[in-house]
């Protein structure tokens, strides 16, 4: 239920193309066949009373309020469960119906607390509305009978309460949990008068398998499930549609406000990425925006041993510019650079790369996509012609076989995972390729046909073996390949993959995947109908990450699974704007729209508009910057929204690099781990405090709208602009929309994009230009961007990171649902109740060999470093494999990971580290020293000190 109301049409829309004419209350209406009478009436503006019906879940027919009369038919059917029929005449308001509805409402209200004036849902309650709609004036039964009014509230969830005394047992929450979220955590326990909503096995919400997505809260028509923020603050009075700043799904939300105070985030029904659904992060975990640790004033210091000193914005900007100028004068033009983040807007990212290229005069700019999806860019550009996923999310509704490789959607991309699970419940088949038994392998009403639990580091061997089966068993889509792909490249590839060393049997020992299962999976993907591949960082973060992306593209082309709804190659982007950060030219070698900096025509466009010559040589990538810093060649860096120290591999190396720099500028919300090594801190603004756009994993550009004034004083693009101006380069934007206008002028795939059009259409998937003025949901429909698709040879090369007697286990790292990336936002919310610390998953056999019990503190050691964390003994990981997350700075997970990286892009090999695990008594020496250094570095001098 939402106060800032959207039309609730009662039941979901029918997708039928055939229309049916009928008459409702004397009005002739025409609706798609299969539409409920309730929805047909509401679409015509006739408000039939309802309680158990809502248009996000299927009709249920329990509340008996939406009854209607139909001429010639007996009885009073529920209009929510009765479909329209040609020529019928429906009456929604008759004396009989009025009596029936009032009787139903009397029963409801006889067992409902009459505390409307003090109820959190006062003015936002459908039960209250319906009492008014049916003209309820008294309750003949009185209120003294047996009732549920003394039942205790469940306040275990940090974000919402469950008050059973206000429950009308309409099952909307149960159905939302099932149909919308797909978790099946709720049920109606008991029968008759004893019926009640129950979480799990009569557990509290927190103890149950509830994932706190908020679907039940949104579906609840009363105050039974209420956001605690609404209880605390009151009902919102206006809303602004904006875009979530968490994962790459890019959910659209209504920020519901009272003045400039955010009351709640409600998923927007018209959001084309999420269709009204949400997860625990986007729905609830926004409290970091007002967290007490947020830094709101600029600070500087000459040396990291000194405490921070708060200064004015003018002083901070002037100091930064003077330091960068000094460094360039002393060490040369190439001695400084900048890093932007996938957490920033397109406009901010574009401006940072402009600052570096135009004001710093070099191409030393990179983005954190370097350490996640840079192999996707190289791999898909080589094979298909552009760096992007091929589909929209809706495409999954048409998939028959879904392949999930190196991704954990229920944790990393939960709202899309719900869509995927829905399709799987409808009968689509699932293949999971992952070292861990992720939830999708087997969960309520979902079970993978094949789970290929490969050893970390063998993706390319597995993918090539899948191709081997497809080629040698004659499962190629010959017509597609002949028409759409380069024939010579295909022939060479087919010959290569057919070699005996690429067979499932040949790679079984190295990969650990039984050949029969691999063959079965290949046959299913090639012959099961529409095959759609979804992949994540388990593919890219390897020394052969780019090769694996190419291998995936090869599979899609070979089977003709590209260029229509239901198929495709879909990189699930980790952060909110990974796609956009890449699109905006934040890699050192290319300008926006993926044009290499050496390409004269493209560079000339930028030079003409910016009135400055640009370097035609590629700049340093993040790992190259760090190496160059240690060698003394790279001395100054401006980092917007990225915590390199926590997120990049081999923390000791990263720390040494920052320690070697003379001016580290961190522009962020909080004192990050990188800020421990910084000389300037520029406070950033949250997504609630600025205008801009994010581009999600399906290339969908969506507006981020400012709902409150920036607490730090400026939107982030304004701060970058100030720095450019201080460096002597003119920038004079007045609004983020002007930056997008410049992006559109300079970027062919964005040529048709503007804030005005985004406002009108809601969102746009690029390419958006003259050929596709409203965007492109599915790419490569009539031909690949590069013309013909190009098959690439994908020879498996084992990583140089080897297990051995000292380090016999393989560590792979990942993410968890309740936390986001380095945790800088989610650790500062109540989400910590689900994940208060990183833990190490270890198989029972490996644990027993080492004398490790569940919950023990263990030492995790690699060739690079050591850290300590608690063990979780679980057979979710295979023997020989351990797994952890990197959400908590105290864990220092990346002190263990190595600098091995992808051959093409330098994307780190986070997914394969040889380690040893042993019992531990406490933090490692590195953790202890780091903690002490961090505490000292975060001191802020008292004013006047």
């Amino acid at each position, binding site marked *: 239920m939402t106060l800032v109301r959207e039309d609730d049409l009662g039941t979901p829309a029918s997708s039928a193309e055939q229309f049916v004419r009928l008459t409702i209350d004397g009005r002739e209406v025409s609706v798609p066949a299969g539409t409920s009478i309730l929805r047909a009436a509401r679409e015509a503006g006739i408000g039939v009373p309802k309680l158990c019906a809502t248009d996000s879940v299927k009709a249920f027919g329990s509340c008996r309020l939406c009854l209607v009369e139909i001429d010639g038919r007996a009885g009073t059917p529920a209009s929510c469960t009765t479909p329209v029929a040609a020529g019928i005449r429906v009456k929604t308001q008759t004396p009989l119906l009025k009596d029936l509805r009032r009787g139903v409402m009397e029963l409801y209200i006889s067992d409902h607390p009459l505390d409307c004036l003090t109820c959190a849902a006062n003015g936002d309650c459908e039960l209250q509305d319906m009492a008014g709609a049916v003209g309820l004036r008294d309750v003949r039964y009185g209120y003294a009978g047996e009732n549920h009014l003394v039942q205790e509230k469940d306040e275990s969830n940090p974000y919402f309460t469950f008050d059973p005394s206000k429950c009308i047992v309409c099952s909307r929450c149960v159905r939302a949990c099932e149909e919308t979220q797909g978790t099946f955590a709720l049920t109606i326990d008991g029968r008759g008068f004893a019926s009640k909503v129950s979480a799990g096995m009569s557990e509290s919400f927190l103890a149950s398998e509830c994932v706190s997505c908020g679907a039940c809260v949104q579906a609840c028509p009363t105050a039974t499930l209420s956001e605690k923020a609404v209880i605390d603050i009151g009902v919102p009075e206006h809303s602004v549609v904006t875009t979530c700043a968490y994962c790459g799904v890019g959910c659209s939300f209504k920020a519901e406000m009272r003045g400039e105070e955010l009351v709640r985030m409600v998923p927007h029904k018209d959001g084309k990425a999420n269709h009204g659904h949400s997860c625990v992060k986007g729905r609830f975990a926004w409290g970091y925006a007002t967290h007490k640790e947020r830094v709101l004033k600029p600070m500087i210091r000459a040396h990291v041993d000194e405490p921070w000193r708060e200064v004015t914005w003018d002083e901070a900007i002037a100091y930064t510019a003077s330091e960068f100028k000094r460094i360039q004068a002393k060490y040369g033009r190439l001695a400084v650079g900048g890093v932007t983040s996938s957490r920033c807007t397109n406009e901010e990212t574009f401006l940072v790369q402009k600052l570096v290229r135009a004001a710093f005069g070099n191409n030393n700019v990179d983005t954190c996509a370097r350490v996640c999806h840079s192999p996707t860019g190289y791999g898909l550009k080589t094979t298909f012609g552009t760096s992007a996923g091929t589909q929209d999310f809706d495409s999954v509704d048409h998939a028959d076989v879904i392949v999930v490789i190196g991704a954990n959607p229920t944790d990393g991309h939960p709202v899309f995972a719900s869509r995927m699970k829905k399709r799987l419940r409808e009968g689509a088949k699932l293949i999971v390729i992952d070292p861990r038994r992720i939830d999708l392998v087997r969960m309520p009403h979902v079970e993978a046909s094949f789970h290929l639990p490969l050893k970390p580091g063998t993706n390319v061997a597995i993918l090539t073996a899948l191709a081997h089966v497809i080629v040698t068993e004659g499962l190629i889509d010959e017509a597609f390949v002949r028409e759409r792909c380069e024939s010579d490249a295909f022939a060479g590839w087919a010959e290569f993959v057919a070699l005996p060393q690429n067979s499932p049997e040949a790679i079984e020992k190295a990969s650990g995947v039984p050949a029969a299962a691999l063959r079965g999976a290949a046959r299913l993907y090639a012959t099961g109908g529409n095959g759609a591949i979804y992949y994540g960082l388990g593919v890219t973060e390897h020394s052969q990450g780019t090769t694996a992306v190419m291998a995936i593209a090869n599979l899609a082309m070979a089977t003709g699974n590209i260029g229509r709804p239901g198929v495709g190659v879909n990189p699930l982007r980790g952060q909110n704007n990974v796609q956009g950060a890449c699109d905006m030219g934040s890699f050192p070698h290319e300008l926006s729209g993926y044009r290499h900096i050496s390409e004269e025509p493209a560079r000339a466009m930028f030079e003409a508009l910016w009135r400055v010559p640009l370097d035609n040589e590629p700049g340093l990538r993040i790992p190259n910057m760090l190496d160059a810093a240690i060698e003394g060649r790279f001395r100054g860096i401006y980092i917007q929204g990225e915590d390199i120290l926590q997120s990049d591999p081999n923390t000791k190396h990263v720390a040494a690099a920052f320690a070697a720099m003379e001016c580290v500028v961190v522009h962020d919300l909080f004192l990050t781990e990188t800020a421990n090594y910084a000389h300037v801190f520029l406070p950033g603004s949250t997504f609630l405090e600025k205008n801009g756009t994010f581009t999600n994993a399906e290339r969908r550009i969506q507006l981020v709208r400012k709902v409150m004034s920036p607490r730090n004083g400026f939107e982030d693009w304004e701060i970058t602009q100030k720095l450019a101006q201080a460096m002597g380069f003119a920038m004079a934007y007045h609004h983020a929309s002007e930056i997008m206008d410049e992006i559109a002028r300079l970027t062919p795939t964005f040529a048709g994009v503007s804030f005005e059009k985004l406002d009108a259409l809601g969102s746009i998937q690029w390419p958006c230009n003259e050929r596709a003025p409203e965007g492109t949901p599915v790419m490569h429909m009539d031909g690949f961007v590069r013309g013909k698709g190009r098959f690439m040879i*994908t020879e498996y090369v084992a990583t140089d990171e080897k297990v051995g007697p000292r380090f016999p286990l393989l560590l792979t790292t990942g993410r968890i649902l309740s936390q986001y990336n380095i945790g800088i936002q989610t650790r500062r919310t109540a989400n910590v109740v689900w994940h208060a610390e990183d833990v190490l998953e270890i198989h029972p056999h490996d644990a027993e060999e080492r004398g490790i019990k569940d919950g023990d503190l263990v030492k995790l050691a690699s060739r690079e470093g050591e850290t300590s964390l608690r063990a979780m003994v679980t057979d979710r990981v295979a023997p020989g494999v351990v797994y952890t997350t990197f959400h908590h700075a105290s864990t220092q997970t990346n002190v263990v990971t190595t600098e091995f990286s992808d051959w093409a892009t330098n994307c780190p090999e986070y997914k394969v580290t040889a380690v040893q695990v042993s019992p531990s008594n406490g933090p490692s020496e590195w953790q202890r020293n780091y903690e002490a250094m961090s505490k000292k570095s975060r001191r802020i001098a008292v004013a006047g000190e």
Partner: protein
Amino acid sequence: MRAEKLTMMANQIGAFFKAQDETAAPAAIADHLKKFWDPGMRADILAHLDAGGAGLDPLVRNAVALLKK
């Protein structure tokens, strides 16, 4: 930049392009280095080649030599 690290990176690139087409590999490797390595990194690998090029795979040596042109 450390020659050892650059050598390893260059050899990784070499392994990929060698698998595509061994004859064309040196030019493809050199093209990749030009497109993705900054001038300083290219200068360092060239200096390493001039110093004997220890550890560089034969195809990669040929590729690095092409950077001089």
